[in-house]
């Protein structure tokens, strides 16, 4: 016999699995710490790349003055300055991505919880039918 209620639940869960569930399940397969770690490290890499792009642009823009001054300036201090900017930039970048991804993680978990509740209901329906 076809059980209408069961089919509705199955359709709902299947549709979820096919659409937004896919992404959420991928997120849900991580522990929170692992997920955040992965994305913060990723954002550090991306941030480094962005810093390099900006740095290259600035350097090229000031190329002539830079070449003139290179013998006069304190290279150690110059390196320290760049390092400071780099670290500040990375920290800001990491904090932002930490916040963004922790919000995303808790949202995905909440949505998955609803999905698992539906699955539980489904299995309860099956059990009831089996006993009959």
């Amino acid at each position, binding site marked *: 016999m076809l059980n209408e209620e069961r089919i509705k639940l199955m359709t709902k869960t299947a549709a979820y699995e096919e659409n937004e569930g896919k992404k959420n399940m991928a997120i849900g397969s991580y522990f929170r710490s692992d997920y955040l770690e992965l994305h913060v490290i990723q954002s550090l890499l991306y941030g480094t790349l962005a810093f390099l*792009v900006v740095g290259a642009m600035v350097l090229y823009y000031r190329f002539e003055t830079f070449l003139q001054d290179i013998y006069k300036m304190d290279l150690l201090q110059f390196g320290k300055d760049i390092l400071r900017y780099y670290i500040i930039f990375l920290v800001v970048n990491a904090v932002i991505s930490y916040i963004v991804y922790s919000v995303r993680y808790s949202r995905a978990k909440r949505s998955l919880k609803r999905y698992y509740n539906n699955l539980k209901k489904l299995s309860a329906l099956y059990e009831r039918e089996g006993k009959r």
Partner: protein
Amino acid sequence: MTTLLELRENLRNFYSKYEIYITPFLKFLLAVICLYAINLNLGYMSRLGNPVIVLVVALMCSFLPFNLIVIVSAMFVLAHLYALSLESAVVALALFLLLFLLYFRFVPKDTLVVLLLPLAFACRIPYLVVFAIGLVGTPVSVISVACGVIVYYLIDFIRTNASAISSLEADNAIGKFRFIIDGMLGNKPMLVMIVAFGITVLIVYLLRRLSVDYAWTIALVAGSVTNIVLLLVGDLMFDTKVSIAPVLFGTVISFLLCKVFQFFVFNVDYTRTEYVQFEDDEYYYYVKAVPKNSVPKQKKTVKKITSVIE
């Protein structure tokens, strides 16, 4: 009004029935329009102007995710700029990279703004996209709008100064590079636009969330007024040479288009038809789940008409 409502309902039914065909077609259309606009405005690489190339690429885009249209358009822009001068392509590439690395990595859904806003700028109605983002977006979308404005002004700057850029000597690479960067950094109209659009998006966003009747209309009206006032104030303060007539005209047109969109797009739930398959011990199920029309029941008002009959 009834005919309009009926039309909307028919449109909705049509969409939920043929969604599989309509979405790719819309993607195709968007890709064709974008690539055509890019070729029209930046046609430095004549090979890309070939309609066959445009059609083939657009056809490819129609089957792939929306964001691919953005990437393909970016590549078209870069190719054209490369044909003009290497330096302009480098600057554009750096800008695109930074936008992706620092921002759109977090909000890939907003990427389309960077495509639509320059397109709307080309049609003289950037306000349309600004209002629409205020209506459907989040406060973070302010950054997306700023990115879109920057991309448009970079392309516009290079386009209007193309002859100056190519007339600089070929060995003066740094000179060309500095010319473009200086042009971008000192671009006051761009800064005014970014500030004005950002505030407009915020105002539209805040007002449409109010729980009062006609919140969306109020938001649109307030947004239009803010937009006009800010652009004119910006013009007075920084002498950005924004002329009043196009701003007024563009805002009014954007407002009207937004109202149309609100009626046909934003207020209607175009939930898609789902095709799912699953099985249990006894059956295979191939389910087509069509979303129900949930039209809120109209309140009935009883009018009493009494007349004294003598």
